[in-house]
């Protein structure tokens, strides 16, 4: 019994442009060619100065909180919230500085563990 070739009807739909939908070729994917600039020797110094700036600001915040704490203790504090907010700022800034330090030390240790 011979099998007769069956001709299937063509289902190829005509390309009907859908308004508002771009064809796949038109969509630009994220460009992967963006290169990361190589680190220069100055970057290390910038990180150091950044940490130092952060420490200076932290010192200013803690000094402010300490001054307001003394005012509270001596009864010269006008607004309670002035002290509590200054203390909160100092606390968060300290946490941020410690987190930065931990990250820096972690990165240093990671490099020191590198096999040569």
């Amino acid at each position, binding site marked *: 019994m011979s099998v007769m070739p069956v001709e299937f009807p063509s289902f190829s739909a005509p390309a009907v442009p859908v308004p508002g939908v771009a064809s796949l070729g038109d969509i630009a994917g994220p460009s992967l060619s963006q290169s990361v600039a190589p680190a220069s020797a100055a970057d290390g110094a910038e990180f150091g100065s950044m940490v130092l700036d952060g420490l200076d600001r932290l010192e200013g915040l803690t000094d402010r909180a300490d001054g307001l704490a003394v005012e509270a203790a001596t009864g010269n504090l006008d*607004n309670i*919230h*002035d002290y509590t*907010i200054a203390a*909160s*700022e100092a606390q*968060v*800034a300290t*946490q941020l500085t410690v*987190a930065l330090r931990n990250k820096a030390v972690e990165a240093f240790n990671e490099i020191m563990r590198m096999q040569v």
Partner: protein
Amino acid sequence: MGAFETLRIANTSLGAHQVWLDAIAGNIANVNTVTSTDEEAFRATYVIFDARPDGGVDVDGFAGSDPEGRLVHDPDHPLADEDGYVRAPELDMSSQMGQLVMAQRGFQASVQMTKTAQDTYSAALQIGAK
């Protein structure tokens, strides 16, 4: 715009509401303060707020209630005039109590704002933490 902008803005709001609470305290304290009819009545203090252009709120100034006050007939009062009248402040106790609740709730809302800000900062510090 510093890292602690939310805290700074909340601080301005706390200060403004503190001033408002102080003003209400003064008004309620003087709700029974009467003067003789040839003097001005106690003037209730109303705080005027103003939005700061850099975010937050400022106390722009104060307004006082009508110095005319209300004439109250109280012949036994030592300050009463010959017709038996004294001058009571133009001050509504129930309105002051309503404002007291508003000022307190506003203050509490700002305190909640500082808590939320701190939680947010703490969450940001948790990024990448082990």
